[in-house]
């Protein structure tokens, strides 16, 4: 959209937009096209010889059991992380919205973990679940008799990174749920209360449906977060192990491309991830349309 009253200048707008354009061309579009291009090439690790192999990299990728395993892990990891942290965020936000005392302090206490880096969240939880020193590992052992060892057991390791990722994201969800809850008109809740609806029923029948756009938006954002931003957690906590049990798709791109130097396969994996994120972004924008209808 353009303003009704605008300036006319032959060179100024180009000058203003130049820095942004240079950065996105060099560091976004060029690398992205390179990834596309390289995904059709096969080259040796030193980049001396390359040959055009059409879709070979993709067929090789999708006939690889390990890649399918990685896809499965990524989806399980992302949805578990998203569900866990959205559910916790919603519960806490609904309660904080009801609270009348100490509102500001409650909010501050719930908001500040947003500032903690995923990698640091990883380190902290690694300690809490440490098989020999971690207090949680110790309690689990003592109360339930379960030997907890994320270093050796794949399921334990996956559980650990899910917890660390979900914990870090609670504050983010909390902020959006509070904003969403506050935009619900009080009169609706009051009318329902006069009609004799219990608090739980009011929450289920009025609050939750009106929050559904926020809920959907957060679902997408949390899945994006779990897909792409949890790299730091996995790199500090498990490095994709044990036995590839926490090898998410993004970590695999890094590992195959940067450590394993399999350029073609890494590029093909990048292309797959691009497709994933295009779908997620499209979903998110569907939500935006919906939201416009709600707020009128």
């Amino acid at each position: 959209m353009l303003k009704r009253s605008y300036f006319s200048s032959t060179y100024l707008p180009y000058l203003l937009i130049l820095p942004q354009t240079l950065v996105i061309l060099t560091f976004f579009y060029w690398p992205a096209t390179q990834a596309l291009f390289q995904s059709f090439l096969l080259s040796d690790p030193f980049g001396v010889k390359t040959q055009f192999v059409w879709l070979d990299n993709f067929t090789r990728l999708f006939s690889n059991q390990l890649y399918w395993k990685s896809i499965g892990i990524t989806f399980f990891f992302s949805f578990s992380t998203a569900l866990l942290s959205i559910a916790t965020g919603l519960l806490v936000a609904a309660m904080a919205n009801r609270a009348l005392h100490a509102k500001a302090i409650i909010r501050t206490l719930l908001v500040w973990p947003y500032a903690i880096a995923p990698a640091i969240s990883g380190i902290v939880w690694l300690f809490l679940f440490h098989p020999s020193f971690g207090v949680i590992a110790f309690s689990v052992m003592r109360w339930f008799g379960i030997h907890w060892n994320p270093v050796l057991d794949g399921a334990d390791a996956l559980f650990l990174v899910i917890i660390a990722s979900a914990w870090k994201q609670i504050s983010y969800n909390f902020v959006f749920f509070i904003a969403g809850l506050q935009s619900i008109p009080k009169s609706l809740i009051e009318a329902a209360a006069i009609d004799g609806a219990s608090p739980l029923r009011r929450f289920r029948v009025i609050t939750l449906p009106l929050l559904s756009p926020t809920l959907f938006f957060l679902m997408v954002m949390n899945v994006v977060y779990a897909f792409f931003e949890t790299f730091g957690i996995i790199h500090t906590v498990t490095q994709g192990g044990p036995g590839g049990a926490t090898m998410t798709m993004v970590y695999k791109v890094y590992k195959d491309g940067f450590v394993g130097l399999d350029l073609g396969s890494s590029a093909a994996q990048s292309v797959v991830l691009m497709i994933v994120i295009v779908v997620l972004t499209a979903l998110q924008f569907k939500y935006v349309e919906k939201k416009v209808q709600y707020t009128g």
Partner: protein
Amino acid sequence: MVEKTPWLDLLTYTLLILGIAIVGFPIFYTFVAATLPLEEVARIPMPLIPGDQLLVNLKTAWIKGNLATQMWNSFIMAAGITVGKISVSMLAAYAIVYFDFRFRKIAFVSVFCTLMLPVEVRILPTYEVTANVFGPIQRILEAFQVDTLIRFFTGNRFKISIELSLLDSYTGLILPLVASATATFLFRQFFLTIPEELCEAAKIDGASPMKFFTKILLPLSKTNIAALIVIDFVYGWNQYLWPLLITTNPKMMTAVIGLKRLIPQMDDLPTWNVALAGALIVMMPPVMVVLFMQRWFVKGLVDAEK
């Protein structure tokens, strides 16, 4: 609330305290661990009462992790990204909203599409570009056979070769993360809500476009800028993958990455007290920013992402 519900109120506060405990416990535990001497932190279970070794551990972490250098690097990176993102996207949004030029739509759409290209999906090629920023130009010159063309005209042997590596440099840490679709949207959205009369009045008074920008738009955008400062500073400070890729020189390492070297491995002494003291130091700057600018932070988060 609407009616009196003493039981529900009790439940509300109980759940709230529980929630705060879940959110805060890991950090509280980290803090306690950072105050204990080695023998205590290795005891099972670790005591929950803070000890008196906090300063000692902080100091050990500071020296052992070389945090002085790394914190400085992180600060430069976070500040650079913040300033860069805000200025670059504000100028771009200004051009898109207040000027009519041929590539306006394309410019907007191309910024929009970068949302779909986070650094994680283009790890290797972005690394290659950063290793030689003129790589793209070089490749284009090669594609058009510029060398041969010049040789044809001048008769000399001619080879164009330009190279500039941004690896292990502040520019390399900052520049690729400076473009931001969300910040551009935020400013665009905000500029669209500014009354038309302001621009008309400025034009009647004979103000140049840049004067209008600095004297009117910039002061009006103050709260938006404050909100973005919080979001982008936290974003920049907490970057992991990008600095991991492009820094090999320990002098250029950022704090969040450097922390990993403090984690005791299986056969080491379990110096978790030092590792967690380091974690406390490194998380401090962004936590402070969020705490002191909480109002703008909440606004920034909600506005920027929608």
